[in-house]
């Protein structure tokens, strides 16, 4: 079920990031990858490590660890309507790159969260065109709503 839009949609989608957003539409987390150095993020026309322009795409496993987090207690963006508190997270994918995201299916409470805890991706469909990757504790049960 598509929930009413409670957050600003990504706008504009940049050309370099289209495979990422197209992948998400099919519940796949796609990462740009360098033949020599492996995956990186965000999408760009060169590898930020060796500067090769030979970039392809791979599907990530969706497994990650929590690198760091915050708990928003007030709306920080007037266009973001998810009722606080919600979790702002920086996760490190098992493939290496880091993403900013939200944690769901876990209490927005420092006592329930620990850096380096194991996470797995969940796909949140915002519109027919836009799905975003969020994360939950590995093995957690899905709950209704959340950030």
């Amino acid at each position, binding site marked *: 079920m598509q929930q009413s839009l409670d957050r600003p949609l990504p706008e504009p989608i940049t050309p370099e990031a289209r495979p990422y957003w197209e992948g998400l539409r099919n519940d796949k987390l796609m990462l740009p990858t360098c033949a020599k150095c492996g995956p990186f993020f965000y999408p760009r026309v060169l590898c930020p490590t060796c500067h090769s322009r030979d970039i392809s795409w791979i599907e990530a496993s969706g497994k990650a660890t929590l690198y760091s987090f915050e708990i928003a207690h007030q709306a*920080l963006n007037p266009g973001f309507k998810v009722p606080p508190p919600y979790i702002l997270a920086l996760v490190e994918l098992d493939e290496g790159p880091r993403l900013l995201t939200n944690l769901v299916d876990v209490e927005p409470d420092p006592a329930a969260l620990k850096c380096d805890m194991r996470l797995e991706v969940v796909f949140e469909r915002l519109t027919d065109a836009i799905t975003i990757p969020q994360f939950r504790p590995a093995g957690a049960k899905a709950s209704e709503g959340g950030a």
Partner: protein
Amino acid sequence: MRELSNAACIVGAAESDEIGVLPEKSPLSLHLEAITNAVDDAGLTINEVDGVFTAGQYTPATVAEALGITPRYVDGTYVGGCSFMILVGHALAALHHGLCDVTVVSHGESGRSRVGGPRARDQSLNSQFEFVYGFYGAPSYFGLIATRHMHEHGTTLEDWAQVAVSTRAWACLNPRARFDQPITVADVLNSRPVCYPFNRLNICLVTDGGGAVVLTRPDRARDLAKPPVFVRGAGEGTEHVLMTQMKDLTFSQATRIAGEKAFRMADVEPGDFDHVMLYDAFTAGPPIMLESLGIARPGEGVAYFADGRSTLGGSLPINTNGGGLSYTHTGMYGIFPIIESVRQLRGECDARQVPDVRLSLVNGMGGMLSAAGTLVLANEA
């Protein structure tokens, strides 16, 4: 690089006529007030200014036009709030090479009242990879740095709160500071939660204001109104803009690079300073800067605040103007710590004057420790 050490002096430093909440003033007016006041402080006239350096909402051309002058050297480097430290470093090089003779570095920002139009910048990366999750504005990002530091070093909420307490104590001694009542660790911990791990009192003010400094070469500087403050060293660096690109959230590579360069130019060691100004948009900033600059070991920066070293009478007074936390913070705060350092080195600070200041460190950040600018300032060459 060593030949740049002491090649220029700060000869004038001032805020706009007022700082605080100024809904009747455009940012451009704040620039013009600050420049007028800083040029007066130096005993110079605006017509003698031939180098215009600024960052933010206006290009140097707009500031020069508003001043009614035609500079022969301009710089608009814009990498966040530390741009002003970096611009002082650029002024050092430009003055050394004779590219201009009298440089003004100026700031004006209606951060609180939002007078004037917004800046237009490409935010497509932020929109795609940050805003859709609720990240937006500095308080939604900087806590990531603090949380990871807590995890790796055992830093506590009480430790961060000590930074706010120490800085407020200095603000109580500064008549220009926005806050003039002391606070305790409990006050910080009980203030309104904004974005864990930060409560309201962990986060800087949002104000309106301007500031400017004037620089010239030492031969000219010696004949002006105030004792010259020598720029002994300057450094800059950038690491990232998006938080996903900062390799180690507990340590700022940009700050390390900026500090190492400034210290080498000045021929000083990290432990040589008797006064320190650190850009404090959040309480976690100054301790991590001490660590990244090599003044404190990793994880030990907070001890400078907890044990009183940072306070009046302490061995390393830090943020003696009351900081972005309690004095003023317009959005790009970087000009104000430079002004305070100049005043301390001149001995103009009355109740908050640090005795016998000879060597002062000013370190700024842009973004979330994304960029850095470091200055080593001294009252003797």
